[in-house]
């Protein structure tokens, strides 16, 4: 068991190291930040100073070494645009994104779990067909469209909720529903699949034969058996929500890390790009590691493979 944990940790560290190279290269691939940071009235001396100040005039491998050394100290440099430490900026932005991901996950589970269970209990019925249609539809609608629709319906036509922004509890509703609806599609299908499998297992069949009431079977056994893969999947999905909520954040003016990343890339703000991706990646990998470990603890077969 300990060996398993150590191996996984070791793997994560190697991945992180690889990641720094990838991030470094990708950030610089976006282009030259100088014309975005300095206006046309700036003098040649200003431009030279800017490049020198951020070490952009040094050879690329030297820049990488400096970058790596600073990262190990937690220093991601100063943002070209805001002139503040990139790390702090990203830290401020991760909070709202994490909150949104969490609430969206909740919405996804609240929608997906009961629907998936219901469909599994009544295969072939109109309910199952409806659930399948729902899941299919949920994955097919892009969030920038569904988000706008929700704003239109519940903020403009019926002034029930704020149309965008961050700060109050009401602000969470529309963005979380937008994202959660999208994520609930896969949660529904996964729950359905695992629930069906659990219901078909011999153990459950036996309980049926013994005449134990259906509801009890469902609640006690099937659910427990089905929960494991779902937990794994939730871990994965959380990571996706973290990185992929970019569009939703833009539509709802949510000051999260996705939107920050897009802005930073469009502004060629290397330090912020690097910091945002690094921190998001670390977060995602930590969650995956935790899920893997949980899995290993709960299912000893895994750790031996």
């Amino acid at each position, binding site marked *: 068991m300990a060996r398993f944990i150590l191996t996984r940790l070791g793997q994560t560290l190697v991945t992180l190291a690889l990641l720094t190279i990838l991030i470094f290269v990708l950030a610089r691939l976006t282009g030259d930040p100088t014309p*975005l940071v300095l206006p*046309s*009235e*700036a003098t040649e001396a200003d431009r030279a100073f800017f490049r020198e100040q951020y070490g952009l005039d040094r050879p690329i491998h030297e820049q990488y070494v400096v970058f790596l050394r600073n990262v190990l100290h937690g220093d991601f440099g100063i943002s070209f645009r805001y002139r503040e430490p990139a790390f702090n900026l990203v830290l401020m932005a991760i909070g709202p994104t994490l909150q949104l991901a969490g609430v969206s996950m909740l919405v996804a589970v609240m929608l997906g779990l009961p629907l998936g269970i219901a469909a599994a209990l009544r295969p072939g019925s109109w309910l199952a067909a409806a659930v399948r249609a729902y899941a299919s539809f949920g994955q097919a609608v892009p969030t920038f469209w569904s988000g706008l629709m929700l704003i239109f319906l519940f903020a403009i036509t019926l002034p029930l909720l704020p149309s965008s*922004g961050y700060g109050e509890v009401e602000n969470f509703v529309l963005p979380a529903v937008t994202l959660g609806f999208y994520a609930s599609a896969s949660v529904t299908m996964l729950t359905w699949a695992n629930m069906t499998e659990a219901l078909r297992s011999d153990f459950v069949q036996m309980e049926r034969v013994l005449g134990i009431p259906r509801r009890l079977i469902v609640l006690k056994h099937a659910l427990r058996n089905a929960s494991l893969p779902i937990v794994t999947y939730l871990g994965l999905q959380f990571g996706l929500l973290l990185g992929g909520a970019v569009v939703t954040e*833009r*539509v709802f*003016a949510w000051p999260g890390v996705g939107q920050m990343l897009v802005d930073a890339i469009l502004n060629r703000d290397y330090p912020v790009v690097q910091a945002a991706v690094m921190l998001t990646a670390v977060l995602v990998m930590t969650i995956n590691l935790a899920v893997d470990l949980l899995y290993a603890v709960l299912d000893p077969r895994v750790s031996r493979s």
Partner: protein
Amino acid sequence: MERADSSGITTSTRPDAPAVLGRRAALLSGAAMALAAGAAPARAQSKPSLTVAVGTDLNTQDPCRVAGGNDYYFFANVFEGLYGPDEEGKPAPLLAESHTVSPDGLTYEFTLRPNARFHNGEPVTAEDVRFSWQRAVAPETRNPRASVLVANIADVEVLDERRCRVRLKKRDASFLDNCGEYWYIISKKHVEAAGENPFDRQPIGTGPFAFVERRTRSYIKLRGFDQHWGRVPAFGEVTLKIVPDDQSRVAQVQTGESDIVVNVPPVLAAPLQRLPNVQVIRAPSFQNVYIAINALNGHPGLRRADVRRALNMAVDKAALLRATMLGFAQPLELPCHTNIFGCDVQVTPYGYNPDRARQILREAGFDFNRPLRLLGQGTGRVPQARETLQGVAAFLNRIGVKTEINMLDYGAWISAYGAREKDPSVDMVFANFTDYNGDPSGRLLRQVRTGGTYSWYSNPEIDAMLDRMNDFASVEERQQFVRGLIARLHEEAPLIPLWTLDSIYGVSKRLSWKPTPNVSWPVLWNVRRAS
């Protein structure tokens, strides 16, 4: 109805409140309000609050480090110069109450207003003016726009508490015009006491609004500055909300969450106008949209002025304006708007004549087999940028000119547009630029002089005229000269001028406001409650 109780805090009692409530309830509510008012100055508390939804976040809070037009929605409200735009957009005395200028145009003397104050209550003195110049040109400050104005100041001499003498290095006819945006007056005491990055925590200026707090990428809070020398706002607390997405931003005024929305896209203006609680207010700006032509090293046909004029003739600018801007722009015949100094010259318009255009191209031996490569702006800083370029391409296609469009995001576009060596594989570039105030010596002509950052054109005769442009002592003489220059540029047609954008604002009907014309940002001090 307002009355002051013994603690000096004003409370308001509704005249129709039932007598049963009595004085005790009124006093209690007054006390509650007093508690709630907290540290905010009592007088500001009685003024209503205002919420404005803007599209971009601030890059900096330091008035000596402003790098682009996007930040002016903050600076134009919090800081001021000696002179600056009035409600008509014309230069008017702001912090200075008067000035004199020497006959050779090199020395200005300013007298400051006696009641000009900083937001911390300190009076504005000539020492502050001198300090503002020093800091703006100090190498450590790295003012990216020093070259526009402050770098040309040789010295600022303090004559007495309220008078100073500014000596320029070279004559600059646009000096007063540019004072308002390129030389903000800051407090010497505040900066010296605050240490490093003095404007990060407390940007102290003299403008009608004072900074309260800011949450990056969410909002900026200001308060009306009651001690302002002349432009006291009608509002106490002002929140500038940052909503990047156009439609979400416009929704803010539809739902009433914001009172004013900035940068309404033209498409959304008409439906907005039909709403009962919203009015659409437009104001002309100096943001020009045009297509720059590569007369240096692109398609060989573009090196001829008659070909470039013919390209102008091929585009039905009026139809394009109606279609893409829905009328929310002013058509441009000349490279600058007619309100700009010297741009009121009469010329023969190019006119829309596709057949004649095609004929001219043929007579000039234009190579129709080689397509024109157009560079566009893909990510939205300018409304309808993509549609505009596609429209222009469509018109060119109609006269037989083949086109290839390459849409770039803003960063890539500006790298290409402002590259030192212009890319020969680019024939035309969609461009937008805001003129500095009312003077053409600003950015536009930076775009036609040989070697200018955004110049894709070279002509020694024009260069000589450009270099002389600011070097006049007499306004009339200068006006004649500039008129001639602009007329000559019209002949040379280094670009296809399209239009000057209107600033479109969505404003709640409970407010009345006349936005300052010829600027591209909201100047908020004259927003009032509609009576």
